[in-house]
């Protein structure tokens, strides 16, 4: 039997299981939403029930849990019992991670597998660090936005360490795909939580430059705009006063044949938080509208009007934003 639990022979015909009486599932008289179970599935779970009730923590029981997992990787009772067996047998957890590698290759969007990995890695401690980081990288090479893998990687970094190359890894992923929102999120995670870096405020200037470059290359990319805003979390005043941010918005607004939506939205927020617009900014915004508009006032209203036009899916939102502008905004 291989780790996928491919069944060459039904359990009832295997001599090594002849002493065990399988325990059938008793659904009761009128089970709701019955699922059509294959014979294979039914039999494996009947034998699992038997060893579970007998609390048999043997190598053959371990093998049986592998077969059950292959059919039913979401069954947390099977995983939990497997953990009990592994502990009783004092099994090699590196080998266990090998086993999970294989199961995960066909079941990667399954919470139980990731929890089991975490359990094994936690027991192994620092021994598991580079292996777990490598494993998640492998998952990302096939799916760079794999949510479970990113959660696992974040847990590994916080519980076991390995921060040294993380920022570089984010950079690498963003070079492959600047639209990868998971990589942007991870970048934020690193700059705010890595014990090896100076923290958000220290990193801010260089991060703003990096983000600005990403935005200029693809102004329609939502991720770096959100990231930019995130760099000034809880510090709107610094965002409003940052010349790099303003200059970035202007550059995007003046460009032709690019999306202006996020630049305008950013400017709207800046204006609402007290930005005093320069003539250059006022002209750049007015160039986007066909209206003459009164000079020097109602700029935020104008921005909203432009947004209604360039982001029509959210026209009702921009109208509402226009109607709820703070009274003192320009």
């Amino acid at each position: 039997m291989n780790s996928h639990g491919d069944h060459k022979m039904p359990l009832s015909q295997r001599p090594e299981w002849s002493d065990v009486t399988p325990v059938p599932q008793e659904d009761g008289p009128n089970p709701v939403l019955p699922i059509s179970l294959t014979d294979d599935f039914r039999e494996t779970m009947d034998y699992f029930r038997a060893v579970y009730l007998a609390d048999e923590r043997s190598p053959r029981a371990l093998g049986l849990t592998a077969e059950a997992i292959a059919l039913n990787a979401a069954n947390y009772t099977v995983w939990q019992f497997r953990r009990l067996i592994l502990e009783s047998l004092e099994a090699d957890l590196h080998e266990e991670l090998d086993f999970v590698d294989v199961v995960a290759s066909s079941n990667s969007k399954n919470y139980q597998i990731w929890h089991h990995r975490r359990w094994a890695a936690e027991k192994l401690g620092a021994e598991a660090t580079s292996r777990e980081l490598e494993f998640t990288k492998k998952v990302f090479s096939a799916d760079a936005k794999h949510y479970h893998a990113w959660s696992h990687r974040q847990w590994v970094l916080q519980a076991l360490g390995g921060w040294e190359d993380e920022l570089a890894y984010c950079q690498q992923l963003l070079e492959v795909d600047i639209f990868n929102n998971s990589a942007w999120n991870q970048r934020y995670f690193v700059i705010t939580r890595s014990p090896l870096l100076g923290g958000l405020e220290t990193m801010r200037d260089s991060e703003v430059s990096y983000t600005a470059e990403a935005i200029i290359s693809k102004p329609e990319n939502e991720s770096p705009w959100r990231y930019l805003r995130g760099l000034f979390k809880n510090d709107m005043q610094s965002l409003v006063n940052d010349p790099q941010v303003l200059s970035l918005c202007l550059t995007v607004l003046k460009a032709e044949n690019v999306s202006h939506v996020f630049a305008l939205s950013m400017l709207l927020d800046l204006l609402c938080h007290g930005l005093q617009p320069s003539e250059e900014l006022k002209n750049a915004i007015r160039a986007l509208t066909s209206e003459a508009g009164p000079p020097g006032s109602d700029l935020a209203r104008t921005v909203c009007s432009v947004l209604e036009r360039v982001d029509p899916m959210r026209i009702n939102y921009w109208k509402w934003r226009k109607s709820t502008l703070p009274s003192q905004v320009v």
Partner: protein
Amino acid sequence: MEDSPPGSSSDSNSPSRAESFDRDRHVFFLQMMYQLMPSQYQGQEINRLTLAYFAVSGLHVLRSVDSLHKEEIISWVLSLQAHPKNEALLNDGQFYGFHGSRSSQFQKIDNGVWTANGSHLASTYCALAILKTVGNDLSVTDSESILKSLKHLQQPDGSFMPIHSGAETDLRFVYCAAAISSMLGNWSGMDREMAKEYIINCQSYDGGFGLTPGSESHGGATYCAVASLQLMGYIEDGLLSKSASSCIIDVPLLLDWSLQRQAADGGFQGRPNKPTDTCYAFWVGGVLRILGAYQFIDETALRKFLLTCQSEYGGFSKLPGQLPDLYHSFYGFSAFSLLEEPGLHPIRIELGIADNVAIGL
């Protein structure tokens, strides 16, 4: 790979699919599933109760739940409840809720007593939702055991684990705990303040919520966060008109992030720069409804997108043109209820059940 636009001439094989919500076909789909689920679903045997919730609540949204045998449903659901042998056991650290199916509920051969408590928080939520949906007032459940043992699942950081024997902890289970407490009308089973703190820590720099602190913001997690806060009483109606400082979460940023999840094809995505998917019309649409901002979406575009995911067999698929599944079907029906499709029951968004069921009519 994209289908041709709905309503175009190449759709002449099944014109009804593209143009309108096909309620009758959806009822048929659910009734077929209810009778017998195909073996492709056997991997979900462990949480069959969740599938039952999709089917029963789905039929209720479609105003067809009366076609079901309610007594049978109630009796099957109740048979999945874990009961402590005596009251002292309520402090043994276990959670006494509902199992998702017999596959986590084991019977000793010698006597008829169920042993080995594998009850699960999400299954408990589904059990209560189903019971309410078929008209039961939950007095038949052993709610005391649920409430007294619920706290064993809450973690020091405020999050919840779904089973006491050990599992991942994240916002999904905070939501389940809040919904369970709300349906039972009793908050003694959880520390709301701690849960609130955990939720706040899950709000990402971009305004959405991740499943755990530091995780990427995600439509499903955002629903769990906002619905939980609503149920626990930490956010009220008319949120948008209140000043930013009075709210414990960053509402303007959340609003902007959530609205931006409606993509060019009219559907909702779960994260920026990811494909649109039927179910986010419920998760993110639901968030917007709770915030009082549903009118800011483009309902026409959303409808059009959802209809491309409507299957000619009944039900909805994840992406346009694929085969339907029970999960996306339920959230597709719920999304149409949010769109106020005629003939559907309105939904109490934060509980995921029909409105009249939520208030006990």
